[in-house]
């Protein structure tokens, strides 16, 4: 937690109406578009997927916007202040390969089966129990994640207004609720695309000014004074590196299990691709998002390195706040209002994204199948709205859970290891092995989730290395249990698996004539740049 006097001495926000004006303009726009759109969202398909009518550049930027929350902005900079540029593994090896995989292999399945959600896919491929278990877990997961965004939003308000953290959290809750009640969620794709531009235009000058100030990359290296903070792979043959893990855990724990688990199964992001106008545009969505994601390996990480150089006290005492402090350091009034608006936009839309996902899962995968299965479309829309309000209220509680972890980054990786790694195992087997049975999937998922949870409760180790290892084990247990149980239970007939399993699906190719829009062309380009970046920062 930050020293309030330090914050106030560094931030001159209180001096000017201009910064407040900029923040106010943002809220007027966001609430205005929500109000206008609310009348146009007529069916639940409209509400959740914008009618599947968007071109890929929009869904691509929304896909990344949905991913750019508190973790990506506050958490990654905090991580970089602690581990140096190795933190960019969470972008390059920990995101790009998985995004390419999602584009080439996962999207066609989701698109063809027309499911609203991951639990929907699980029901078709496995059984009702698997879907129910996953839906319940996912709803909890979303609320736990939503708390981080609320906490981050409160940090910004605390900085702006000088209020206590509790008062700032309550203010954030009121604002997010107001946003939702006034129709903000019907415009979440609009705001995710907007947020991409705001965050990019807010972080880019921070990195540029910081580098100018420090005298370029070599000047920054010199003033930070830790050579190991500027290498991503050096010394990963041993544990003598800032992460204190070997390359094996980075490649398999992070690059394979955690990363693929997140990008393949977190339908908060997958849903954005499904809003695209056709299959080709859907497939292109994660690939278009991958290019700016590469850039964020620099934009989100470097503020953490710059803070080490110019504000070392902040880096050691309150790394979560590195980005807002740096903004206060470099941006004059006007720019500062814009920078803080970009942060608020990210956290608010991140939270709206979590809450939308929560209400979709609650409405379509819990309420509709188990509680009230034959009501009107309008009824389910209202149930979704109520779920949203409840979700915001529950997030106040989870904000305090997030607050108990050393950094936001640690908290999120603990959650990913438990919730997403087992799910990824279940998916992999379901998609590539026809023999996987419904109960095999169910027991594997339960066993894997139980493994992750038990390992965490025994050690209570929230370090990044521990989370990578936990994810790997939870995933392996899921695979083993699923395979064993599948071999002794009755497989589903092939006719039921068509369109759900690789090899039993007639691959419908997206019609795409322009060569530069073909998925594999984009995939090769983005992977080549990834390799080049890893070599450059070796």
């Amino acid at each position, binding site marked *: 937690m930050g020293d309030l006097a330090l914050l106030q001495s560094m931030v001159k926000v209180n001096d000017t109406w201009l910064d407040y004006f*900029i923040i106010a303009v943002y809220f007027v726009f966001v609430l205005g*578009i929500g109000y206008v759109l609310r009348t146009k969202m007529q069916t639940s398909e409209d509400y959740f997927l914008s009618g599947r009518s*968007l071109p890929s550049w929009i869904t691509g930027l929304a896909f990344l916007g949905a991913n750019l929350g508190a973790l990506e902005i506050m958490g990654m900079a905090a991580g970089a202040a602690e581990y140096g540029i190795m933190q960019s593994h969470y972008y390059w090896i920990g995101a790009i390969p998985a995004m390419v995989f999602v584009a080439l292999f996962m999207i066609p399945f989701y698109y063809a089966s027309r499911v609203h959600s991951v639990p929907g896919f699980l029901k078709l491929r496995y059984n009702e129990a698997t879907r129910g278990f996953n839906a319940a877990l996912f709803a909890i997961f979303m609320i736990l994640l939503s708390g981080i965004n609320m906490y981050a939003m409160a940090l910004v308000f605390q900085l702006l207004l000088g209020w206590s953290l509790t008062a700032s959290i309550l203010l954030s809750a009121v604002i997010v609720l107001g946003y939702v009640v006034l129709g903000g969620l019907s415009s979440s794709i609009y705001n995710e695309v907007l947020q991409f531009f705001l965050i990019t235009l807010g972080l880019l000058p921070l990195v540029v*000014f910081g580098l100018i100030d420090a005298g370029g990359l070599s000047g920054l290296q010199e003033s930070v004074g830790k050579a190991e903070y500027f290498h991503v792979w050096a010394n990963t043959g041993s544990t003598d590196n800032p992460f204190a893990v070997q390359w094996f855990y980075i490649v398999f724990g992070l690059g394979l299990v955690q990363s693929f688990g997140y990008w393949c199964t977190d339908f908060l992001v997958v849903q954005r691709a499904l809003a695209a106008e*056709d299959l080709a545009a859907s497939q292109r969505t994660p690939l278009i998002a991958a290019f700016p994601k590469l850039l964020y390996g620099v934009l989100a990480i470097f503020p953490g390195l710059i803070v080490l150089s110019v504000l070392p006290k902040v880096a050691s005492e309150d790394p979560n706040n590195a980005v807002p402090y740096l903004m206060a350091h470099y941006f004059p009034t006007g*720019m500062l209002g814009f920078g803080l608006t970009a942060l608020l936009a990210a956290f608010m839309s991140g939270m709206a994204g979590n809450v939308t996902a929560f209400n979709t899962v609650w409405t379509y995968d819990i309420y509709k199948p188990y509680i009230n299965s034959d009501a009107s479309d309008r009824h389910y829309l209202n149930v979704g709205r109520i779920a949203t309000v409840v979700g915001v209220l529950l997030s106040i509680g989870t904000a305090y859970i997030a607050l108990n972890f050393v950094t936001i980054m640690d908290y999120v990786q603990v959650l990913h290891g438990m919730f997403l790694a087992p799910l990824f195992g279940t998916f992999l087997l379901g998609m590539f092995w026809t023999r996987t049975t419904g109960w095999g999937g169910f027991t594997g998922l339960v066993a894997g989730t139980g493994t992750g949870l038990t390992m965490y409760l025994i050690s209570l180790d929230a370090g990044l290395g521990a989370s990578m290892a936990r994810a790997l084990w939870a995933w392996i247990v899921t695979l083993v249990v699923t395979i064993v149980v599948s071999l002794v239970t009755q497989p589903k007939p092939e006719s039921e698996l068509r369109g759900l399993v690789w090899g039993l699906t007639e691959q419908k190719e997206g019609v795409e004539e322009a060569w530069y829009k073909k998925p594999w062309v984009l995939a090769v380009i983005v992977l080549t740049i990834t390799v080049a970046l890893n070599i450059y920062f070796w």
Partner: protein
Amino acid sequence: MTEEHRETEHHEYGEEERVPEHSGTNHSMAIGFYIAALLLIFGVTIVLAGIISPAQATTGGLGFNVNLWWGLVMVVSGCVILGMTLASPRRRAARQREDGV
């Protein structure tokens, strides 16, 4: 809703029929205008702040007018998005169909 909004999205590949299943709002153009407008308002505001009080001191002062220059970058970004939205093939297609009717 304006006439333009009522146009159903035109599918880029004529040979394939699309099942209309949404309200027909042209979200892609609306998103372009929305973002361009906000970036232009922010950019112009920050440029004005830079011109009116160029000597804004910050602890990490860099020796140039940060508001003015970054405000200009934002104005240019807003103009580019506006231009792309206005020139988008979808908009042209919509207009052509309107002319045809």
